Each structure stands twice: as C-alpha cells, then as structure tokens.
C-alpha cells in the first residue's frame, strides 16, 4: 500500500491530470460521438465508462497525491 502511495505521490502531478482530461476529451467528443452515430453500442459504452473513470479517477488520485505526505 505504501509503495502505491509513493508511486501516486511521485507521478500524479498536474501534467498527468491534464493527460487524463485530454484522453477523456478524445473518448467523449470523438469516439463516443462516432460510435453512437454508427450504432456501435458496445464500443460506445466502453468509451463512455473509461472517459468518466478517467475524469473522476484523475481528480481523485490527483487530490490524494496532493494531500498525502510520505
């Protein structure tokens, strides 16, 4: 657990958060829209879930990285 927290503290900075948000932008605005238009339900759901996970998870992990002090 401690090594995971050290990893989070070392690597989850504002750049990583930005990349999580850019990644979810691609997933939301490009992939989800295209898959919805093409009626690819499985791909649409998968992209949507990952995009939401990236936004929520990105902010949570960034918050943890800021708060913890190891």
């Amino acid at each position, binding site marked *: 657990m401690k090594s995971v927290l050290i990893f989070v503290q070392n*690597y989850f900075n504002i*750049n*990583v958060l930005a*990349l*999580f948000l*850019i*990644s979810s932008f*691609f*997933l939301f605005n*490009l*992939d989800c829209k*295209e*898959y919805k238009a*093409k009626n*690819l339900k*499985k*791909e649409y759901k*998968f*992209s949507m879930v*990952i995009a939401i996970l*990236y936004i929520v998870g*990105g902010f949570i992990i960034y918050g943890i990285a800021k708060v913890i002090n190891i």
Partner: protein
Amino acid sequence: MITDNDKINSSELGIFIFLAVVGMGVLSLPSRLNSHVNNDAWLVIIVAALINILFLYIICKVGKINQNRGFVETLRFLFGNILGTILAIPVIIYCILFMGLELRLFGEVTKLYLLHKTPLEFIIFPLIILVTILVRKGIEAIAHSFGILVFIIGFAVLALTLAGSQNMQMSNLRPFFTQPLSNYISGLMVGVYAFSGVEIMLIMYPYIKKPQRAFKAATSAIVAVLVLYIVITVQCITSLGNEETKSLVWPVMALTKSISIPGGFVEDVEGLLAALWVIYAFTSLVSFMFFYTVIAGDVFKHKKNKHFASLSIPVLYIISLQGSSIADVFKLIDFVMRYFSSYTTFVLPVIMLIFSLIKGKRMQG
C-alpha cells in the same frame, strides 16, 4: 472490422515494417554492441538480421495459414477462447511498455541535443498526442504518411552518411573474430532485439491487399534496416574508434560532431540529425500503437479500436517517466526485450505455427 479501403499494398507494408523497426535504439546500438563484441559489431548485426528473417518467415507462414483471421482470432481458434485471450495479453503489455520506453529515449535525446532547457515532460507530451491522432485515422492514413516520411528521412540520412565518410579509417575494423564465443552470444541478443518491430507482421495479414507478397516486402524492409545498421555501426567504429564508441551513450550523435559539410552551409549537423531521429521515433511509436490498438480491440471483441489509442495516453506518459537515469531506462529496456519481445517475436509465432499445422492436419483428417 476491416473494410476494403483499410488495406495497404506490399510496398507500403515494406515501408511500414522498416519504420517500425528503426527507432531511437539505433542511436545507442553501436555502443551497446561494441561493449560485447568490439569491432565485430557489424558481423553480429548480419547474423541478428538472418535470425529475424527466419522468425519473420514463421510469422508469415502462420499469417498465410490463418489469412482470414486476425491475430487474436487465430489464437482463439488454435487455443480456445480463454487461453487464446490470455496469450494475447502479454503482447499488449509489451506494446505499451515499448512505447513508453521509446518515448523516454526520444525525450532524452531531444533534451540533450535540441531542447536543452525544456522539461522532459513537455517534450514527451506533444509526441503522445500526435501519435494518437495519426493512429486514430487508421492504417491507410498511417501508410500514406509513412510513404512521405521515409523519403525525407532516407535522403537526409544518406546525405549525412556521405558527409561523415571522410573521417573513416577502415583499419579500425580489423582484426575479426577475436572475442570469446560467450561475448558473441550476448552481443547477438542485443543485435536481435535491435530488430524489434518485425512482430508487427503478426497483425498485418488481414490488412494486406496481396498477402502472397507479404514475406518478400517485409524481408526487403529487414534488409534495408540491416544496411542502415551496418553503415551506422561501421561509421562509428571507423570514425570514433572502438574504445570511444564503447564509452559513449549516443555514439551516432557524437559521430555527427565530426561531420563538416563542404562549404559550411549547414552549421549544426548534430541538431539536424537529432531532428531527423525524432521522425524515426514518431514512426516507430505510430506502428507500435497501431499494433496495440488492433490487438486490444480484438481482445475486447470491438468492431472499432481507435478508442484504445485515446485511453492509452496517460498510461504511456507515466511509463515514459520511469527510471531516474538513462542507465535505468536501458535496464528496463533490456528487461522488456528479454521477456516480452522474446515472447512476442520468437516464442508465440513458433507455438502458433506448430498448432496451426496440427490443427490443419486434424481438419484434413
């Protein structure tokens, strides 16, 4: 789902394989080989290329037998649904780790020779985005852009090679075969892994217009890479000498320092060459990301796979920052090559070929 306009011809396939194999690793290849086999490095490269061509033949044989199936589909056909999927997962991990480490090498070289004051993160950042954008466009867009890039970098590298040939001392290449056998074996391992990228052929068969020409095209690409590697290694040994080549991390970049263009119209040749290798890093990354998205899409049984490129962005960035020094990065690369590359390039194709032949005979029976 592969549509008709998602197919490439054999010359595009050759360029694809060539640009997938040549990456940032070539900048340090002469030094890594020389530390094992001294001035026989170029001989080891020839043997390494022959080994890769042999395994390329096996990959192509598997591809021919299972022409209408994708890579993961073939694994599932041969080993069943669960085992087939499990066997494909290390290949995905390999692609992600390879891309992350290639990004790091790109960042280190660019920082050292082009953008001295820019933080590593901001060098890596834009490249990941650019690679993702191109991969999302599909194989045709990738093949067309590679078709343009290969001539630009090919011409520039050739011009720089000719300019650098004035300082060569061919006597540095002698004597031959003076090292113990164990050194040649360890050097051969380095040489064999320098051709990483050949394994992309595992997924290429469904995307080729004329699959019967695939082996010829891919072999031509390997021969072109071999020529490039030999030229670079021989130039380093003959211009810098054995000991200096061995002691440098990026001997190819050091080599360019000794180049002077007649007339002096290009001042910073080193910077120019570093800028050229950026393109090689880009093409290598695009090839591997395409490789990864196709396999990941097949593993999840998705009809489209471009979202896998999008979701890999932060993961690649985090992997690229692993290792505190360049020595750590090379250790990580050795680890990835020894286990994941060996599995993908050598172990898996052989197992697939054996099972394809057995299954084929059973079905005939």
